């Protein structure tokens, strides 16, 4: 009886551990799939800034302003910007000039794939990729993003 209990306990612990590891792995896989759905080239980038249309309005404004300021300075081969959750394109273009939107590394998530709760956030997100695989996702921060741009 004791050995059976010990056996089930070990199975339980292993199951819990594998669950934890799997969650992150699955989330990043899901992110890769989402990026590919938006545009097949997105997994080629090293850094992606995802900006939602709804959420923390101050954070969204800051991230948008940052992207516009940096658009000419950043490497368009390695860094991309995605806008998601846009309901009214006319409204969106009142706030974000078309001259910025026509850059080849700026994407609109027309089908709102990033609004799926698996990947959505009320905050702008910085996604890092290596060899076409997502390796991290974190809330956008201006100085952290600046450092990433320097490294890349």
């Amino acid at each position: 009886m004791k050995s059976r209990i010990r056996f089930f306990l070990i199975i339980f612990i292993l199951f819990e551990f594998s669950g934890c590891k799997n969650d992150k792995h699955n989330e990043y896989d899901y992110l890769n799939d989402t990026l590919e759905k938006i545009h097949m080239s997105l997994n080629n980038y090293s850094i992606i800034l995802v900006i939602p249309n709804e959420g923390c309005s101050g954070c969204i404004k800051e991230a948008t302003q940052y992207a516009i300021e940096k658009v000419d300075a950043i490497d368009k081969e390695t860094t991309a910007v995605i806008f998601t959750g846009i309901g009214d394109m006319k409204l969106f273009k009142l706030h974000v000039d078309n001259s910025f939107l026509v850059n080849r590394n700026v994407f609109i998530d027309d089908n709102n794939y990033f609004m799926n709760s698996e990947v959505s956030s009320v905050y702008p997100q910085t996604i890092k990729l290596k060899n076409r695989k997502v390796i991290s996702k974190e809330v956008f921060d201006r100085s952290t993003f600046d450092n990433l741009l320097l490294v890349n």
Partner: protein
Amino acid sequence: MNRILYIGLFFCFFCCSEEKKTFFIPENNSKIFENKYAFVEVDSMSFPIDSITTFWHYSSAINKIDSDSIYFYSYINSFDHSINYSSLDKQKTKKIFANLKNESKLNLISETSTHLFINPNQFFIYSLDTGKLFHIDSIGNIKNEYGIVDYNNANNTSLVFPEPSSMNPFIKSNDDILFSCGIKSQIDYSGIGMVLKYNLKNNEKKYILPLPQLYNEAFWGSPFKYLPSFALNPNENILAISYPISSYVYRADLNGNIIDSASVGSKYFSKIEPMFNDVEYAIKTDRDYGEEDIFSFSNSDFSKLIYDRYKNLYYRVAFIRPNENEVKIGDKIPDFSIIITDNNLKKIGESKFSGKIYDVSMMSVTEHGIWLPRKDYYTLDQSKIIFSLFELKKI
């Protein structure tokens, strides 16, 4: 071994499956009713909009000036901080730039400002950001300014704050302005009035009509589940009030004394469930707002209440929300129905509408019927907003 297994299973079952309270909506006057009327689309009306005007407005309305029998469509354009209006016959939009700036020189006609169109010569504007109400004239001059909420006062311990919008517009009844209020999270909502009555002559404030006891029995989700909608019958000076998670509509006098109530439900959903049975979840510091969103947008509820003064009827909006999986993939937009009752809150009809086509938050009522703006037409042509007119027809 078996004993241990059974004990373990018993504890698992007991601990993991606390049953949620369920509040069933009475079938009478919801599923069972005398179905006499329905809304039928009969006409449409198009309003041209300029390059800086978009579809959705936090504050918009179609109003009739009784003395002239002219209808006006008015809205706040937060992009250029203006009030815009156009009459149905002239179709030309007029803009008013009110001279409203606060100490920081920020324009007080913002994304969360709301307005009340009295006539082309006078408007009221409520600035949610500053808690001030302004009475302005046809060229934007301030005729009067009223302090509704003092956010800067450290002694202000008010738990409720006016939160008007197109969905819950503020209204004027003689010298009173009435606001629907939002509330800070509580564990006891007893006695907290959710409608603010503000007197323009003596500046007296009175909070009337508290949330029903149902709110003390569980936690219901996002703040919009706590926001009431009211409608005024100006002929009888009766306020009718609707709460998102209660099937009951209450009627009261203008002092907040309840006259009667009736369950007025939708035939599209038969129950309302809270998010958690524990009302104290509301004051937890580690609330999961993402989960609250998913729950709130996937559980049907009630919303806007309108009194049709032309037909002496009430219209109650019910949101028929998508399921949890649909919300999780980003599909939050609900369909809605408009429940029709007579003056005694007896249900006489219900019509369903697609939330992807019509925007109920900007719905208006005139003597011809109800006007609903078309999202689908706007997607095709962003130079105009088209309203569909629905007449009430006998079935």
